[in-house]
């Protein structure tokens, strides 16, 4: 048991799985000698050698396409795209090859690969380094879309993702890479993909969120309890696709009021699907319109104004009060 940052926890997951399973390979730009631009793969090259920790040329489509080929032929590639904002260079490979190979061959080939990428704002980075476009991948049949919210669940989810027989898109919130530490057990832990967690229990209101936003949401929930006496239940989705409909329904039916919080752009974003699911499954339990507290439908602004784009505690509180007031 050690206190680890999320970067360290992900590193641990990779290291332990590579030790256990020879077929796991890590590949991407700067993942070897440099240990990754965020140091997530630090030390792996030394331990596992360059055949298994592969510094690739600068070409996202080939990184993903090569991973798909490796996965078909019996390896378990974990590829890193340096920022999710560059994954669109490989979009055709992700939607056209990774997501379809099992289906196209009626199960003859499957693609057990993980495509890791940092997402989201908060580290004073450049354009294209702060986006949160998980909806693209969640809308793509054949892909799973996972976003941990902290060291411990990041480790457990990544282990599950590496063992999953199908391609998993794995977003890592840059803002929480090193923001805090958590106890992470040495022994292996997994969390089934598709299962969310109740991050805080409450009866008055359901706040649904994930990734880096989970922490601001929890803060907001405390504030609501203190200042308004509102006890919010906070659901940390962990998987954006598949969505954990069951846990969502349960909570919504209990509280009747819902807020959704995400960094992603509002329109056609993850919040929309969550609203649609609740509409379908729990319409008659709803007492007020569901509130979306999200990024705006603008290009994610450069870092000086990024925090005005990303939902903050106050905006979440405002959204929650609105949901209660209606």
């Amino acid at each position, binding site marked *: 048991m050690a206190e680890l940052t999320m970067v360290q926890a992900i590193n641990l997951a990779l290291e332990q799985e590579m030790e256990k399973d020879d077929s796991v390979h890590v590949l991407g730009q700067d993942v070897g000698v440099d240990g990754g631009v965020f140091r997530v793969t630090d030390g792996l090259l030394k331990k596992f050698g360059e055949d298994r920790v592969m510094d690739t040329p600068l070409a996202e489509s080939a990184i993903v*396409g090569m991973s798909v080929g490796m996965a*078909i032929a019996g390896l378990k590639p974990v590829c890193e795209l340096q920022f999710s904002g560059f994954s669109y260079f490989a979009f055709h490979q992700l939607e056209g090859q990774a997501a379809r190979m*099992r289906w196209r061959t*009626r199960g*003859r080939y499957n693609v057990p690969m993980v495509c890791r990428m940092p997402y989201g704002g908060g580290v004073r980075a450049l354009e294209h380094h702060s986006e949160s476009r998980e909806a693209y991948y969640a809308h793509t049949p054949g892909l*799973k879309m996972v976003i941990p919210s902290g060291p411990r669940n990041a480790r457990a989810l990544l282990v599950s993702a590496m063992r999953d027989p199908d391609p998993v898109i794995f977003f890592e919130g840059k803002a929480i890479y090193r923001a805090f530490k958590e106890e992470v057990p040495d022994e292996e832990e997994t969390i089934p993909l*598709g299962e969310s967690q109740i991050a805080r229990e409450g009866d008055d209101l359901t706040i649904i969120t994930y990734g880096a936003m989970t922490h601001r949401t929890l803060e907001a929930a405390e504030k609501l309890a203190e200042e308004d006496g509102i006890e919010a239940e906070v659901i940390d989705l962990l998987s954006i696709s598949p969505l954990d*409909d069951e846990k969502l329904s349960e909570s919504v039916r209990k509280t009747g009021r819902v807020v959704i919080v995400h960094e992603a752009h509002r329109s056609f974003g993850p919040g929309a699907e969550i609203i649609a699911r609740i509409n379908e499954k729990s319409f008659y339990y709803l007492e007020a319109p569901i509130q979306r507290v999200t990024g705006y439908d603008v290009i994610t602004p450069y870092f000086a104004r990024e925090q005005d784009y990303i939902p903050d505690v106050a905006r979440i509180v405002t959204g929650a009060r609105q949901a209660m007031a209606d």
Partner: protein
Amino acid sequence: MPRKKIKLEHSIEYLSILDEKGKPDKDLDPKIDKDTLLRMHRTMLLSRRFDEYQLRWQKQGRIGTFAPAKGQEASQVGSIAAVEDDDWMVPSFRETSVALWRGTPMSGLLLFNAGYNEGGEIPEGQNDLPISIPVASQITEAVGIAYAMKMQKKDRLVVSYFGDGATSEGDFHEALNFAQVFNTPNIFICQNNQWAISVPREQQTESRTLAQKALSYGMPGIQVDGNDPLAVYTATREAAERARKGDGPTLIECVTYRLSVHTTADDPGKYRDEEEEEKWEEWDPIPRFQQYLKDRRILRKKDIDSLEEEIDDEVKSAWDEVEEQIESLGDPLVMFDHLFEERPAYLEEQRQTMKQYREDKNG
């Protein structure tokens, strides 16, 4: 001195062995054994006749659109015959002759062309990827597979196919660069059939050859007469030897011609001259190869006749087979299979909705 020519790693060669009349250059003849030669010939002829039947069936609405291989049989068979049966094969979407060589049943191809996903199933034991419709989309996969072979210390290489048009896509470039950097056992077969739908080779790129694109990666590249199965075989064989020795990938440009339509949705009359087609008809790889086989007394006229009959029966019975298969196929609910190993709840729900809906409709 300060302005000097740079020496490249490789030079680009052109190779042909059979002349237009089917006479081989004696020194270069790869001396393929008789059985292989006959199997090559049979596959080329079968592919040709199968294309012809399919064109008819498509007109009759029995199957949907497809891309005939007519004219490219030598490029396809010459290359695939030069590697082992358990090497990997990564097609584009026009590799009927290759598929037949590998053992894919015609009924499978027909099923695919009739619009059934089940047609994409690769027979167990055959190390082939399925057709991929987006141009150049699985050249990178071929590199990944080759890398896996290397890691697993299997003596297997990967032959992959694509067209002249595909060389313009970014993925072609990225894939070949990766292959050379990771020194993978890949053979890249570019079937330059002179056209990418309506765009002629000369408008696709300004490089004199496609083979020279290998220089961009420090990779050996060679241009061969793609209507000459012996030349294609020889170049592929050499590439395979290099690959197996651990000397990495090769790009082979097969200069050939698409003698038929792009797909059945296409009308070449809109964009190319009949004269050009006629000129290339004279270079048809099948008669040329037959002449060579006849001259070597491996094949007689009457062998061809009986082979033609045999093939005719085979193709026709493939249709009967596929008709039966179609009848025995599951209902559309199968579209919910094979998305993931385990079907998640939301998909099962959707499946149930469809099921319910179909039951309501039908009864």
